[in-house]
């Protein structure tokens, strides 16, 4: 058995579990929806900033895809519809900053498609501004820092892939009385942000953001699948350790 087969087995098992759990639908009622005080804090801060007429910034990462954290860019885009809903973009105060052209183009498309089946023409006009502070990691860090210095942002929410420089942006916003939230996925950024951000998501909780911001039945299926896989993973790790200790492996 080689690693390619192991990969197939894991992917097939996950897909199968996801489909079964999704088909079970309402029968999963026993599996309660999750809540997070950090996600609730973000939503509250966004509303407060809208009411105060302050701009909000959602940073979606400095790259769409990276070898170490391949799913982060995609996950950020799946969470974006909840962050940039009609209410949030209506006043034109929401800015989405990304360090990668493809991320920004997709983000723009998502916001534009956010209200396609409605009846109000006013709501269908995208009022979000897309910012590319810089096309490389360094220029993104410096560019975003200067952008944050020009305006008094009410809140900043970090999603996606960053380095430890992420702490500079949260400090810049918080020093002016703004709110900071981070579901930044890379290990260096999580370690750095732990010092400064109260509402911080760490590890796999980063990937549950879309479900925490707006829960539905599909999220119950996902959480159940993730939990089953997590338990299986723990058992495999323990089994691996025992086999290694006993000399089988």
């Amino acid at each position, binding site marked *: 058995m080689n690693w390619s087969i192991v*990969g197939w087995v894991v992917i097939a098992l*996950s*897909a199968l579990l*996801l*489909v079964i759990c999704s088909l079970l639908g309402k029968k999963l009622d026993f599996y309660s929806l999750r809540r997070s005080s950090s996600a609730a804090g973000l939503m509250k801060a966004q509303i407060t900033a809208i009411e105060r007429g302050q701009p909000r910034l959602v940073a979606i990462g400095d790259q769409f895809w990276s070898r170490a*954290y*391949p*799913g*982060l860019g*995609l996950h950020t*885009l*799946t969470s*974006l*519809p*909840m962050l940039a*809903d009609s209410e949030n973009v209506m006043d034109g105060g929401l800015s989405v900053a990304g360090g*990668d*052209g*493809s991320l*920004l*183009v*997709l983000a723009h498309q*998502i916001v534009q*498609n*956010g*209200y*396609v*089946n409605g009846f109000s023409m006013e709501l269908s006009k995208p009022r979000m*501004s897309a910012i*590319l502070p*810089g*096309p490389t990691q*360094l220029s993104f*860090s*410096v560019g975003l820092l200067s952008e944050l210095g*020009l305006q008094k942002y009410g809140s900043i929410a970090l999603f996606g892939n960053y380095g*430890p*420089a992420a*702490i*500079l942006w949260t*400090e810049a916003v918080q020093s002016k009385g703004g709110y900071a939230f981070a579901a930044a*996925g890379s*290990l260096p950024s*999580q370690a750095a942000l*732990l*010092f*400064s951000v*109260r509402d911080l998501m760490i*590890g*796999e909780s*980063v*990937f549950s953001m*879309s479900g925490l911001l707006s829960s*539905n039945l*599909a999220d119950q*299926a*996902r959480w159940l699948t*993730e939990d089953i*896989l997590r338990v299986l*993973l723990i058992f495999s790790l323990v089994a691996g350790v025992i086999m290694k200790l006993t000399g089988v492996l």
Partner: protein
Amino acid sequence: MKKILSVIIASVSGILILLGYFFKDRSGGLLVLLINWGILLISVAGLIGVGYLLQRHIRRLIQRKKGMFLSILLLLSFLTTLTLGFVFSLESEFFRELILNIQVPVEASLLALLAVVLFTSSTRLIKVRGWTPLSIGFLCSALVFLFLDLDLLKTGSGTLAAELILFIRRLPLAGARGILLGMALGGLIVGLRVLLGMDRPFGEGK
């Protein structure tokens, strides 16, 4: 219909790439073709991204908004780098030296700023997070590893103390692996949900 079509295109391309990854020998160049299309699209999106950057700064300049001076600086540096990049090639020693002599000091100063901010923020850890097991554990482990990395403890090789220090030094690696495994699991589920059409960020809402 438009939404269903985009879901089908996204799912089929994703599944084809996945199959091509596992059956490289039998993919018959399909994988390479799809990846090349992807690279082409990403490059075009990169150009659009640069367009966003320029548009924002040009608009700020025209509207004489706050930060106009920074915009002038950015546009001038962009045009200078672009022109020099076309005049000299990327392989040119002069061009590379010129860029690196600006980029490296800027990068170093950013790192210095980061070190100061990290230090000042670490002193406020308890204020931000309170006396929680996480904050206490984080502070204690930071102090322990700082002490260990100073290399003040001298132990003979192969002794119990040396083995113990080696074990303690490996602990962060185990923690990082644990976090990465959890994130890999999360990433896998996100990818599968998009592939199976359960998450449709490109459609309306969720």
